[in-house]
């Protein structure tokens, strides 16, 4: 099953490689990993999307907690949460496709952020599966390039991950 794990860790050189190294050394898979400093510059917030049985996910959270740089670990998938990923996608937009691409972008509540006479660059935000659905809805040969950030997640309501 897919799990979204949120990690609050010291914003120190090497902290990212400790997490990435842990996943590779113990053979856990990473679907995506995003990291950036928080409002407190000494802290980084990381979101890791991974898959595994309950036992594997339990080990992953325990092993992450064991890293000295890691302050808190939460498996967001255990409760109500919001997941968002940003995608930039360059689409071929010529002839009758030009209108079609604009309509698809509107349907998915995306935005066209760059335009030339041959292509659109679309910005789309949502869950990973929404972004997947958008890409599926577009004719494959029209997709010139995609860039995805990987998912970020946050708990709903008063579920707060803080020091």
């Amino acid at each position: 099953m897919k799990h979204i794990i949120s990690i609050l860790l010291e914003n120190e050189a090497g902290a990212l490689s400790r997490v990435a190294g842990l996943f590779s050394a113990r053979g856990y898979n990473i679907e995506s990993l995003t990291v950036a400093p928080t409002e407190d510059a000494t802290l980084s917030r990381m979101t890791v999307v991974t898959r595994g049985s309950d036992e594997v996910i339990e080990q992953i959270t325990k092993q992450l907690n064991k890293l000295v740089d890691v302050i808190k670990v939460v498996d967001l998938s255990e409760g109500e949460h919001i997941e968002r990923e940003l995608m930039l996608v360059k689409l071929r937009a010529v002839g009758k496709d030009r209108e079609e691409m604009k309509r698809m972008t509107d349907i998915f509540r995306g935005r066209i952020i760059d335009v030339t006479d041959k292509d659109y660059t679309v910005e789309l935000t949502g869950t990973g599966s929404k972004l997947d659905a958008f890409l599926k809805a577009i004719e494959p040969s029209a997709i010139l390039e995609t860039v995805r950030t990987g998912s970020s997640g946050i708990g709903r309501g008063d579920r707060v991950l803080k020091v």
Partner: protein
Amino acid sequence: MQMTGAEIVVRCLQEEGVEHVFGYPGGAVLFIYDELSKQNKVKHILVRHEQGALHAADGYARSTHKVGVALVTSGPGVTNAVTGIATAYSDSIPLVVITGQVPTYAIGEDAFQECDTVGITRPCVKHNFLVRKVEDIASTIKKAFYIASTGRPGPVVVDIPKDVSAQKTEFLYPASISLRSYNPVVKGHPGQIKKALQLLAQAQRPMIYTGGGVILGESATELTEFVRKLGFPCTNTLMGLGGFPATDKQFLGMLGMHGTYEANLAMQECDVLLAIGARFDDRVIGNPKHFFDPKRTIIHVDVDPSSISKRVKVDVPIVGQVRDVLKEFNKQWDLFKFHTDLPALKKWWAQIDTWRGRQCLNYERSTSIIKPQFVVQKLYEITKGDAFITSDVGQHQMWAAQYYKFNKPRRWINSGGLGTMGFGLPSAMGAQLANPRATVACVTGEASIQMCIQELSTCKQYKLPIKLICLNNRYMGMVRQWQEFFHGNRYAESYMNALPDFVKLAEAYGHVGIKVDKPGDVEAALKECFARKKELVFMDFQTDQTENVYPMIPGGKGLSEMILV
């Protein structure tokens, strides 16, 4: 007062009460060595290879409950040290390893003797640091000692670039330190403790299985009290020997791949298992699928939550310091007047006694050829079971674990997790320096000893009267045994036909060497060896080449699938 980084390093070690540092100088640590030479509180022990420095610091830590300290230079100094760091990591040994690094301005330029120390050591340390500013040296070293010695212990590397060790700043050593991201658990959950005691009281076929955590957690006394109070059978892992007295009638011997018949079967057949400071690893329970059937209730006490339910699902996890939890066990057992099911226990012991009757450690005696087990038994008798015994890795290690009865913790020092050949001699150096008046012997083989043989020179320099008990069967014995059992007797590359004359070799290093090839001479030779109190003696016992370690659970098999002699 302004001090250089190098001076600060040495002052920090003094503040931590470090008496011995094991190391080897080189370009990147010259400022630190310069400062070491200007004082006499911290004594430097010059090894002959960085691997030796790490194992010596490791043996020092294992024999004392102190943090071992090593100092090596950048590049090859670090890469040579990695085996020793990984060895300590596998067995959770507290070490602080100070490594030199090329100057900060040269990092990343592929400078001479540069390597990415923090990157190379990351997977085999508890934590590591690269110190980029001289102002950070003192607090980093404080953190290193704190992290290494608390929670589940482990090695911590502090990498210091050469220019940082030359810069100056005010020296201020923090009295204490707290890290928001690192707060090891101390106390076990009271509800879980009570639940565990209730289960133990109801047990029909109980078993207590303890590991290295009891030794590291200084809780042999508390464990012994608890086991005797309940009257339950107890087994120790290879790392846990000495946690419960081996001569006690409740002790079933070591368990695992080369554990006793009674310990392994009691593990398999018990209905309530109490595991303390142990981790159900592959060499202990073999195949976890086999271990699941029959089902039993498992209580697991460990300071490291990630050790719990890793290979085996646990029913009652208790995260906390082993010593603290055992103290609570003892206190509450009496306080709430728990009592065991005596008739059930009597039946269980009767069953265990029939397993014991199999006498699985019996071996064929010989008057013509030296049996390695016999040498270890005589070693035990002559040292009255009171020596510090280090070992290398292989058959000799297993025989030492099976036939030397350890009644006290920290007396048995071996590389259990990583299985590092070459560990025995340098770790004996550390143990001897930490316990100058104690008898220290290293049980080794002719293959393992050659992996760190150069340390005989260090032993000469510091007059370390270690006794080397080499069980020389002219084979990499454990490799040969596996080849005999699983590879059709094809002894690929496991025979050494160009062995040195160990007596001459010992003499060349300035020590005493004694070769023994008749069983009748073993006892007298050992007596002579231990009578030479001030000298290192290399005992070269020519042992039976075909002897195997029994019992044995083949890899991937279960606890009740032992091969017996």
